């Protein structure tokens, strides 16, 4: 039992450590890429607060997904989504529109099947990759997702506090 506890704590520390390191690395990368474009000008006007926010947010989710690895359904779905997003951003706009349409039709099909969004459906929308899960699996994935989100929040908070002060 004691060994299990240490393993669990090591896992908890492991996930926090992995996420923290990945996130910081991606922050650095963002910083450097921002510097390349912005130069002397302050970064607020250069790229735009919203875009920067979104980039940081994406970096956070990507870091978390990679830290978890492909072990979990939601992390796999997140990674898949991020990879698609990266691919889409890299390709021309036409293709981007096409893929958007595909996504829209898929969503419409899903909407037809459910008349009113039940709680389980709302949860499915929140958890990445939740569409292809039955309720039982969904709850388990939600639990793990909540844990990872919590670690994400704590790490980001500590980083932000240290940065701003």
């Amino acid at each position, binding site marked *: 039992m004691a060994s*299990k*506890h*240490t393993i*669990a*704590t*090591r*896992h*908890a*520390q*492991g*996930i926090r*450590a992995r996420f*923290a*390191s990945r996130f*910081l*690395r991606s*922050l*650095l990368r963002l*910083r450097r890429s921002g510097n390349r474009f912005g130069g002397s000008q302050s*970064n*607020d006007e250069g790229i735009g*607060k919203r875009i*920067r*926010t*979104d*980039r*940081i*947010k994406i970096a*956070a*989710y990507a870091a978390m997904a990679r830290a978890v690895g492909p*072990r979990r359904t939601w992390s796999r779905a997140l990674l898949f989504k991020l990879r698609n997003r990266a691919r889409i951003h890299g390709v021309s706009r036409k293709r981007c529109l096409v893929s958007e349409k595909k996504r829209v039709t898929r969503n419409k099909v899903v909407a037809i099947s459910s008349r009113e969004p039940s*709680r389980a459906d709302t*949860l499915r929308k*929140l958890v990445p990759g939740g569409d292809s899960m039955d*309720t*039982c*699996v969904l*709850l*388990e994935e*939600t*639990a*793990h*997702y*909540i*844990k990872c*989100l*919590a*670690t*994400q*929040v*704590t790490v980001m*908070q*500590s*980083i*932000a*506090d*240290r*940065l*701003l*002060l």
Partner: protein
Amino acid sequence: MINRALLPAGGGENMLHCTDMTVLERQRARIKWQQEQQQQQFQLQQQEISYFTELADVFHQAGFHEGGLSEVVTRSVKPDPGLVDNGWNNDHVVGYGVGLPYNNGLGFELNYGAISRTSSCPPEAVAAVAAATVKGSESVVSDKISSGAGRESSKKRKVDKIQNNSKVVAEEDTRDKRIKGCAEQGESKITEKNNNKNSRNNNTNKNNNSNKENSDETSKDNSKVSEVQKPDYIHVRARRGQATDSHSLAERVRREKISERMKYLQDLVPGCDKITGKAGMLDEIINYVQSLQRQVEFLSMKLAAANPRLDFNVDNLFAKEQAFPACSINFPTIGMSSDMTNPAYLQFNPAQQQLLACCGLDMGIDPPDMALKRTTSAPVSIPETFLDSSCFTQTHPPPTWDADLQNLYNVAFDQGRQTSFQTQPFTGSIEASNLKMEM
């Protein structure tokens, strides 16, 4: 005997594995189980002869003729396909019941063989015989006969669900019909027992063979919870006084899985102790996930605003974060962090300094476990200070964030929940709840 006593609590992942098994694997496992069951049944024959003396008397009275007894019996021993083709003429239908009076052992074999095949869904294997022993001779016979007839519908459903072998399914259907024909002879006893039969049969259905022979009274009184067997497939035991057809059993298993996961979520999500019921819990969970996601977005905004200042801080921070999780301590980072503590962090508020002091000093000195505990306890202070409104106003909130802040505070941070909200997930990740799930 196969021991199926596995608690579902320990089998969270096992259940996952069970569900991960393909249908084919499960079916193969089931076939293997059936074969084992049949073997067991054959082994049990010798002990059960006494039961069938009464049956023999009844059948004797019913006046069945004995033609084809030997054929039926021998064929009952053979595998199923043979039984279908050869053993089931009209004569043999009658002879199905006939076997008993003339040779108890053989009759027993026949019963077992037939029953095992009639209910080749394993849990049903014991039903008729078990029921028989409980009620006594006459009812036993009628039960056994009518069990085929009455149970036909449920068996068919179960067959569709569980059976993979279409041949076996066909056999069962034909056999059921034949048994029905046989049952008409003893109709008087059927009707009165039919109502009780189903529940009792299915109750004892789920028992092990070993239970059956010991005492069916006790097996009936056993109000056992559903059990999960490891690698094969799920054996479910019907609870006393509850519906026992296959559909409701499967639903019960599913419901129990869901409730177990809801309980685990209840521990994770703070402030859910008082909430009972799936709906409220789901609402809380949804709220919690939404608030966490909003927090991430909010923090990313904060970091975006802080980005211009990332110049030298990030490097420091990187070293800090490396040292921060105590598990991977390498000396260069420790050296760096200890150098950084003095000059760079004088501006930090006391809470931060405390944390940094912990990180910088304790890492190098304490053994990893101690440092681990230290670092796990230290960051708790940070979320609390973060929650502190006073602290927060110090940290330069841009005007655009006020709305978000308010939003966050209204939704996520109840007065009573402030500290628990932050510390709960943190401790939750450390505490024994981690033992249940792997990261």
